[in-house]
């Protein structure tokens, strides 16, 4: 599972270069996210633009990533496909995450408290 990271000031942008976050790769996703996020910065923007599909295991893995960032750091999401958005919307997890239309929009938005 490939990722691309860009550090921009106090924001870490993680671009997921996989078409799917599903049961076949959820554990790998969690492990890699933990490595990539490290101990800083405070804001992590997960760019899902290339992700076409996410199942409940993938959703659980994204939630797990937010949990291990802890209370003082934030995981924000960007670039959700309509299929991925549907899963967040139906489970109401869209109310838990800050979701941006694109990673660029996320990078220019202020880190307002959720």
């Amino acid at each position: 599972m490939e990722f691309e990271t860009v550090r921009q000031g106090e924001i870490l942008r993680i671009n997921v270069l996989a078409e799917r976050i599903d049961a076949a790769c959820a554990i790998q996703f969690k492990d890699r996210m933990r490595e990539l996020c490290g101990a800083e910065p405070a804001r992590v923007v997960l760019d899902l633009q290339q992700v076409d599909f996410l199942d409940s295991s993938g959703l659980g893995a994204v939630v797990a990533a937010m949990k291990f960032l802890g209370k003082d750091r934030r995981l924000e999401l960007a670039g959700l496909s309509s299929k991925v958005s549907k899963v967040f919307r139906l489970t109401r997890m869209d109310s838990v995450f800050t979701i941006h239309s694109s990673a660029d929009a996320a990078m220019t938005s202020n880190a307002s408290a959720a």
Partner: protein
Amino acid sequence: MSPGEAPPGKAAAPGDGGTSEGVLRPDTHADLHGEVGHALTRVVGSTSEDVRETLRRLSADLGRLGVLETDREAVEVVLAECMNNVVEHAYCESPDGEFELKLCLTRESLFCRVEDRGRPMPGLAIPAGDTHDLSVELDDLPEGGFGWFLIRELTRDLNYCREEDRNSLSFNIRLGQAD
């Protein structure tokens, strides 16, 4: 019994020597607008990679059959959850199992049946799949249990039965419904 000597009124038993060739019955016949449903059957191996590959192909197949993108999204979400449940719970991640996915497509709906020979569902019942309370502390947010909720949200006529050593889960997904 020699070939051609099947008793009157009885077809020759399969597996008899002398059959000219196996009958390859195509599992699709392209008439989406006919009254009769369009049947598709897939045999799936019991790994999450097999599930992934089946979903990819099936979504493309349904697209070719004229199923709209929004409907295919719902179908993919539901079938992913059903098949992953089979892999994880019925076969307990054992990779040498196999299960069947039977679909019947009409203009209004996609009827689905998932049949496996793994362990029965606990209590011989479909898990509740309740909504989660999300107004909790970060550490208490759920990381699982979304699967049955999604299945229940996106399907109708959800039914489970255990017959001998077989699990059978069936449901309908209505097509052409805006969500």
